[in-house]
């Protein structure tokens, strides 16, 4: 295997929300939900992103405008080229009668789970405000929540999950979002005895397990993860607490 970016041409761009755009391009990729790719913008930087759409060789990446890189990304137009390498990392282990819990852009890596499981999945998706909700036309009957209650349930995805668990059981819960939220989803699932798989985020360099940048308590998020199950997470003290900066400093996450 040769780990170098392949340049692809952006063939379509979709505005998912004021701050999230999905960029589409064509590429043959053996991708499983949970994995990620490294996106290269020449002369700028390279960062990890998950794939939020995949139909044959049509691939979509949903990008939240957050800082330098993603702002530059949002300036890309149809016809521009970007580099992509991967996919990397472990996949989610899919099971029917499950539930995905996505906080904000954390809904992106869960979207392909929904496509695969079809109706056999309950979708919980939350954001701070209504405008940040993603994929509303894409997925029918999502269980939505906003912190201000402007749309759907008033509260966090965790509050909504707790509500739903009162009347409903799931084989598994798949979740991605801010790490504090993930931590509480895992706790909740433990209380209810439900299996849970989480997609973590760490700053990455190589993406294939040699540089050690993405460490989370001895686990390399790029290759041992980014998907971890509750049992594995229970042995990772850094989960929900510490992330590691580009310079290798431990900071609270």
């Amino acid at each position, binding site marked *: 295997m040769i780990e170098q970016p392949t340049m692809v041409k952006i063939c379509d761009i979709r505005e998912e929300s004021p701050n999230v755009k999905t960029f589409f391009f064509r590429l043959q990729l053996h991708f499983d939900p949970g994995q990620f790719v490294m996106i290269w913008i020449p002369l700028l930087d390279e960062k990890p992103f998950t794939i939020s759409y995949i139909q044959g060789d049509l691939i979509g990446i949903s990008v939240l405008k957050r800082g330098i890189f993603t702002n530059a990304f949002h300036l890309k137009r149809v016809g521009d080229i970007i*580099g992509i390498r991967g996919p990397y990392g472990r996949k989610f282990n899919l099971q029917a009668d499950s539930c995905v819990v996505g906080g904000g852009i954390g809904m992106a890596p869960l979207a392909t789970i929904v496509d695969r499981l079809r109706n056999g999945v309950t979708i919980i998706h939350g954001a701070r405000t209504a405008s940040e909700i993603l994929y509303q036309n894409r997925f029918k009957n999502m269980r939505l929540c906003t912190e201000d209650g402007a749309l759907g349930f008033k509260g966090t995805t965790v509050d909504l999950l707790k509500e739903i668990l009162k009347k409903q059981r799931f084989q598994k819960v798949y979740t991605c979002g801010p790490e504090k939220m993930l931590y509480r989803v895992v706790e909740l699932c433990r209380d209810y005895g439900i299996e849970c798989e989480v997609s973590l985020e760490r700053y990455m360099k190589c993406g294939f397990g040699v*540089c050690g940048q993405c460490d989370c308590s001895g686990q390399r998020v790029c290759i041992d993860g980014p998907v971890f199950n509750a049992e594995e997470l229970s042995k990772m003290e850094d989960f929900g607490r510490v992330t590691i900066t580009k310079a290798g400093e431990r900071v609270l996450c």
Partner: protein
Amino acid sequence: MSKINLSINLAGIQLMNPVISASGILGTTKALLRRVAENGAGAVTIKSISIQPREGHKNPTVITFEAGMLNAVGYSNPGVEKAAKEFENLQDVGVPVIASVIGTEKEDFIKVVEGLSAREFSAVEIPLSCPHTPGFGLLAGQGTPQATSDITSAVRKITKLPLFIKLSPNIPEICTIAKAAEDAGANAITAVNSMGPGMIINIEARRPILSFQVGGVTGDALRPIAIRCVYDLYKAVKIPIIGVGGISTGRHAIEMLMAGASAVGIGTAVYYRGIGVFKKVCEEMSLWMQENGFDTIHEIVGAAHD
């Protein structure tokens, strides 16, 4: 395989086996060092530490090609203060831990070594040989006999720990530099660091892929060069040599020992064979030794010299 014994004594440090994780590979946190130890490494090396924190170069920083790996990480590290916190109670790691220390000025090395001295490191390794980080190694003129001698003796004065000097494969007079290190009090030579630098261009992007444009070449491409360096060094210095460069199998490790290395370092092979490469290489070495009538590592070291 009962009678096969892989243990060695490297400059006074006792190792269960001669396979060491090279600096910059999985050496960012104590937790990862421990993981590498659990996967069979005889000793582990931390990612190089400087005085101040360094973000390093922007991505892409590490890519691979047909013959190995190209990297320009740029010595990203949290700085000596944070590093001293990260690497507390190193006995938890389970095997000897080598501190890799970098600097621009002679004083930098001293400050970092002092900053880490309270920790249970088993040795200090000083790379004077990075080919792709401004202010360090070759790009700071540290690849000369004089600079090597100055830095080595300065650090020698302030630590009792075994001192390893890590050299570049680029420099024709590598033996002269090694001798300078030996005379200045080094206890071992680590040979070699990455080679080059090299460049890989993406022809559709029409740009070098690495953000720093160039990076050090490692892996298979480096092995014959590293073997030759170690072969020459074995004749030039009396102190032990840690052979590093393109080792991914037991056969490669044996070849490096026969060239004159007392121990081997492994980096890039973690990509090709996974984090279990350390155990795999040890098992392959044991098997080969059994089939070829060697009982100890000592018998193999330098065997290619007549």
